[in-house]
């Protein structure tokens, strides 16, 4: 019989969209996206190693020819590649923001006495604007790459 109920959310908390139910917390959404894009990138690296390894045995030229063939037009492989590029763009841009915030404690405001409307200084700092900049920039870059890949 269970005398105590374990209520730890576990790894699920990293993906649960608490970000949507918490007020004023796009950082959480950025965090969830960072996790998801990180997982996509790990998968991509494995796939990349496998594909380059098995095909490169026939020589560099033939491998490049095959890859170019794969990436032309809309097909599952080019779409997967496109998603991986998007993940890399977001992960990289958000990573820069996190480096500045986490290693150097930049952009998180100054400690202050609480006053209405009671928002913590780190949520008001420049890093909040940086999050929106990261979102917008990664969508623009991703769309541009998609245009070049599929419609150029």
């Amino acid at each position: 019989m269970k005398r105590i109920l374990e209520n730890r959310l576990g790894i699920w908390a990293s993906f649960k969209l608490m970000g949507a139910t918490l007020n004023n917390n796009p950082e959480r959404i950025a965090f969830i996206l960072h996790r998801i894009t990180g997982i996509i990138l790990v998968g991509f690296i494995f796939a990349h190693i496998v594909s380059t390894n098995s095909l490169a045995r026939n020589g560099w030229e033939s491998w490049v020819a095959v890859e170019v063939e794969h990436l032309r037009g809309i097909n599952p492989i080019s779409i997967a590649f496109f998603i991986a590029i998007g993940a890399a763009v977001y992960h990289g841009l958000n990573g820069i923001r996190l480096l500045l915030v986490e290693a150097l404690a930049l952009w998180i405001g100054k400690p202050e006495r609480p006053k209405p409307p009671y928002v913590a200084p780190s949520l008001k700092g420049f890093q909040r604007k940086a999050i929106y900049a990261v979102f917008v920039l990664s969508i623009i870059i991703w769309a541009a790459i998609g245009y070049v890949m599929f419609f150029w």
Partner: protein
Amino acid sequence: MPVDLKAVTRRPPEVVKVRVKRFHPEKGQGWWQTYEIKTYRGMTVLDALLKIKAEVDHTLVFRYSCRMGVCGSCGVVVNGEPRLSCQTQISEKATPERPEVVVEPLYNFPVLRDLTTDFTEFFEKHRKVRPYLIRLDKQERENPALEYEQRPEELEAFYEYTLCISCGLCDAACPVYASNPRFLGPQALAYAYRYLADSRDEGWRLRLEELERDGSVYRCHFAASCSSVCPKVVDPAGAIQRLRRALLAYNLRLFKKRTAKNVEPMKVSAERWPLPPEARLMEGVDLEAQEKGAPVIPKEKLLED
């Protein structure tokens, strides 16, 4: 924004469904139970729970004490967001389209019964960061005869973090605390920073060494949910980033801190006498007589509107 400041002025829907996640330790099982209650303007989630307990189901168990956001014992999860139930208006969470409030026990804490959670681990972690001033002068620490000298800006540097009421909402919201049981949690780390930043504290070397060994500081990924749910605007997320910067500086041998000296207690200087007129007693007021009965103020001293 931690609290919807306008919510208290709105009327909640007439009848609200309160869905409570319950757990009974002797039955060893959990279940969802729905209650329907009549509301009034200004009703909080804690009021609703108290009303249920008084009128509908007295087996419902929850914890509270001050009912005004001071004690930090009434933390629950309301509609997926960790909140103090005494500070959450029903009208903030229940809308006319969806007159429902879902109340769960705090995430990441073991549930003892219904909405009551076990804070042992939380306070053990709090204790681990040494939440007290460390002075090198043992003699003075045990038998203090002097005062600390502190500048106003040194107070500002850590004042915000002293407001924590140990409600545990930040730990319930933290995704890292949820998946890593060894993580100290936002509350404990905010306290670690509070004492590190305090100019009266001289134990910074010990604190930084311990934090470095523990490694919790590096587990934070700045999801900042702790700061967004904190009812006292303590900003644990900012504190952890500052701790990290302090650790980086310490590892590069660059960490510096000005610590406060012990000084003689302040004395009232003689120039203050006689007191300025606004601090002097009114003429014609008999203090001794007043201490016996209700205060009597001479008619002519009363202010007229």
